[in-house]
């Protein structure tokens, strides 16, 4: 599902965010990406989302060589990947429902289908009764769940989450992780960037560890 082959990323200012990264992720796997801030977690996610292009090496996602993907194909490619951000990236000029519906509207689904899927996704994150509210009135945990609902509503093959529990208390992070695990159970490949060591221990999943842009660990715990 994800293949990194000798991938390096040097930013224009000369900073080496990633150097010679190699790893593979099978379809349906769930793994954590860890390291201190600045270790390259976010850069790695951005490379997968094609928000950045690698300076060197090859990235293959679900059979697509990202290096060969043209600019016009990027939007269609991104529709296969759900993303959850630490800061949710919700739009406060519309309701929870409309936030979650956005990927489906973009993909051009029929109106009824959108309603059905959005409610299913909101039901999954237990926010169905709040669909008419503006996300600004929701709590941090609820906002994060709206973000997750938006990320999964398009039934993506892969879910990326960048510090999804960054500013949530342990109880809420547990809740979020349970959600991720449920999606993983139905076959979605899930990659979560987190530096929360306690959380990593609890989850006991494969961990890819980055230090200063180098891959220093790959496996269950260390």
């Amino acid at each position, binding site marked *: 599902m994800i293949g990194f082959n000798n991938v390096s990323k040097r930013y224009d200012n000369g900073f080496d965010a990633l150097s010679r990264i190699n790893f593979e992720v099978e379809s349906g796997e769930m793994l954590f990406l860890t390291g201190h801030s600045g270790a390259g977690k976010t850069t790695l996610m951005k490379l997968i989302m094609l928000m950045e292009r690698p300076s060197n090496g090859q990235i293959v996602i679900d059979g697509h060589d990202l290096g060969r993907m043209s600019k016009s194909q990027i939007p269609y490619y991104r529709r296969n990947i759900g993303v959850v951000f630490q800061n949710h990236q919700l739009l406060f000029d519309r309701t929870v429902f409309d936030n979650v519906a956005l*990927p489906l509207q973009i993909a051009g689904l029929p109106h009824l289908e959108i309603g059905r899927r959005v409610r299913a996704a909101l039901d999954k994150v237990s926010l169905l009764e709040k669909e008419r509210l503006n996300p600004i009135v929701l709590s941090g945990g609820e906002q994060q769940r709206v973000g997750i609902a938006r990320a999964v509503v398009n039934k993506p093959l892969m879910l990326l989450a960048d510090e999804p529990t960054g500013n949530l208390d342990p109880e809420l992070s547990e809740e979020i992780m349970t959600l991720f695990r449920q999606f993983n159970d139905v076959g979605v490949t899930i990659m979560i960037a987190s530096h929360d060591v306690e959380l990593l221990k609890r989850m006991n999943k494969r961990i890819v560890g980055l230090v200063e842009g180098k891959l220093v660990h790959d496996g269950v715990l260390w």
Partner: protein
Amino acid sequence: MKSKRPSVSTNRPSGADNGSRSSTRPSTGATRAANTHARPKRASESESSRSHGTAQKGAVQSKLRFGDKFDAYITHHSTSAIDSLLRLLETPLQSLMTWMVIAIAVALPASLYIAFANVQQLGETWEGSSNISVFLRPDTSDNKADELRGRIAARPDVAKAVYVSPAQGLAEFKAQSGLGEVVDNLDKNPLPGTLLVTPRLQNTSDAAITSLEQMLVADPLVADVRLDMQWVKRLQQIMMLGKKMVFGLGGLLALGVLLVIGNTIRLAIENRRDEILVVKLVGGTDAYVSRPFLYTGFWYGIGGGLLALVVIGIGCLWVSTTVEQLANLYESNFRLQGLGIFGSMQLVLLAGLTGLLGAWIAVVRHLYHIQPR
């Protein structure tokens, strides 16, 4: 591109079954690439075309019928159109100011155009009645003059020839000039006999007129020939110049409209930057993101055009009574002509298209550069 995707999407399930490792993917990928994409294929790049094909396969995640996609496309157009209009109406004062700026920029050349169109219309009526005045020698008798008139009238390139005797001419002058008393004090009639020759309309080419003129001059009874057409021609030339100025001014002001709308759209894009980023992250194409802004520009143009019509209408109403009185003084039943329904529609549409163009320029310059980071 759009029409290609549905056939791709129907291939999706088999693609999913094939698993995810592309490098060993069987030939389905390659044939799919050949079937679904028009990209020029180089012989050495079978692998490239294969990965390209798989990229296409991945392009559509859910199975969608073409009809559904088309419906969604139309729906997005209509919702973008309505949303962007509602957005403009949400801030009425701000929008009204932009509309006013556009309206003034549109109304200025448009009213100049109306003015010239009206003058031109006047010119045309004059042109129709344009005569050649043939002044006869003072000693010509009425009989001889009438005989000459008959000869001229018989020519194929002459529509009409009318003899105005010196006495008639004096009477006319007395009636029209308001100098009756002065005329009464004259010892003898200073006016020569005159033939008013109207050329046939289809023969009004320059060469035909000149040959007619030469023939008239050659007659021993004729003292002088005056072409009334000359000044009509000059008027036409002046109006041509005026028209060019209107178009030049119109072009400059259209450029102004483009800049105003471009700048307004740029601000709108900046205001909605977060939204644009999120939409692009969840797979919105540039076309999808730019659609509402293009509609906003279109509405700015249409609104400005409509306001311009109001401005022009008020202007015409304001001027028309004066024009009417002036025309009455000249014993003319000339009346000011406005743009008319067709012209008005053209004006509004033109303004709308200018707005669309301005928005498009802003979108290309600014929106496409907003990329998620």
